[in-house]
């Protein structure tokens, strides 16, 4: 099972779990329709689309409403602690949750107690809390952008909001920031760094870069990082080793973006529609 975990930007959205269905520009679950604008709905849509294209079972999602107050996230953490270990997921992608170190640790320890940790991917708020917890190395993949890489490189910063200026000034020096993140034990075993050039890194250093197709308009579009996480989660679930999955996903996300012919005003749903075609093209090239 590929499990996807995150929040929906609606205050009264209940905690739901199951397989989401794609309907045009929205996903639906338990009779709830959720627009795919950005955030976890974009992750769910992209992963579902990629799993379908790869001939894999649809992902299983755990979702709850939270508009930033943290109430929904805490409800979800509690539910995950009780139920996630028994789901026997092979890959888990954690996404937009309110960072809460105590609850993060409880969920992680519950998974560890079950034995044989699944492949763990953390993006967005869950990547922040995974770093803050001191257990970053337990994770298999983080997907930071350049600003978030500086946060991972800063051993003192508990959130990107507090990344120190002298480290932010190093944003053009990705190899240095990668080294700092791994040396400080603040990185997952693989990093997929999103930017004008995507970097795939392990503690050995940069193992791959992806910079084509170059579509400048993708950076400001909300949700393109979420689609990337969705595609890499699906590829990992399909059995690709993490660094290879991250490299393919970076190429697929760029190509899907290009196929959507975007401007900085394009919405991510237009890009998600192009994922199957992009996936097919890139996998044909790889194989």
């Amino acid at each position: 099972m590929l499990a996807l975990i995150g929040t929906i930007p609606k205050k009264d959205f209940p905690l739901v779990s199951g397989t989401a269905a794609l309907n045009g520009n929205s996903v639906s679950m338990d009779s709830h329709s959720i627009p795919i604008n950005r955030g976890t709905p974009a992750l769910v849509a992209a992963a579902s689309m990629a799993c379908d294209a790869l001939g894999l079972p649809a992902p299983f999602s755990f979702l709850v409403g939270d508009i930033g107050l943290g109430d929904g996230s805490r409800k979800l953490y509690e539910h995950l602690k009780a139920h996630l270990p028994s789901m026997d997921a092979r890959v888990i992608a954690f996404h937009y949750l309110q960072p809460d170190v105590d609850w993060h640790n409880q969920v992680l320890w519950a998974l560890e107690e079950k034995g044989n940790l699944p492949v763990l991917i953390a993006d967005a708020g869950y990547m922040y809390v995974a770093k803050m917890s001191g257990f970053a190395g337990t994770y298999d993949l983080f997907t930071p952008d350049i600003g978030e890489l500086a946060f991972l490189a800063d051993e003192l910063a508990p959130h990107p909001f507090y990344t120190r200026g002298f480290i932010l000034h190093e944003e053009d020096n990705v190899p240095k920031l990668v080294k700092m993140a791994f040396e400080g034990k603040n990185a997952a075993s693989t990093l997929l760094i999103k930017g004008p050039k995507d970097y795939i890194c392990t503690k050995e250093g940069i193992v791959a870069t992806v910079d084509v197709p170059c579509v400048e308009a993708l950076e400001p579009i909300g949700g393109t990082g979420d689609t990337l996480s969705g595609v890499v989660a699906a590829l990992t679930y399909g059995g690709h080793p993490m660094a290879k999955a991250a490299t393919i996903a970076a190429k697929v996300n760029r190509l899907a973006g290009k196929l959507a012919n975007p401007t900085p005003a394009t919405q991510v749903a237009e890009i998600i529609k192009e994922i199957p075609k992009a996936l097919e093209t890139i996998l044909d090239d790889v194989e």
Partner: protein
Amino acid sequence: MGPPPELRTGCDLVIEFPLVEQLNILRVLEENSITPMEAVPVDNPLLKPVDLFQTRDYGRYLMVRAANMKLTIDKETLKIVNISGGGCPDVPYLGASLVGKDIRQAPPPKEVGHTLCGYALQLAYEEMMRQCSL
């Protein structure tokens, strides 16, 4: 400011004040229904919020990034066309609330957001307003 390591729980913000003023300040906060989680003395310097901005001009569109948050507007219409980055749950909510609105009429992110990501977007918003002389 950022809390010292022993007080960190997740998405945290602290307000620094002179210890001698503690009683007065706690009273004022309480009168305004803002109860701090803790009030503690600290010895070491606290982490400051980011104060660096990155700006990218796409011709018709302008993007400002503060920390992990990016705000993009259409320079011709002054509409907010995209919000990206961030990781706290109010980021998608801020996107749904602000995208498509004229930045002059849209509520400032600090009125809609609840987290440090929302605060970072507020800084990007203020920098955008400054750069566009609005």
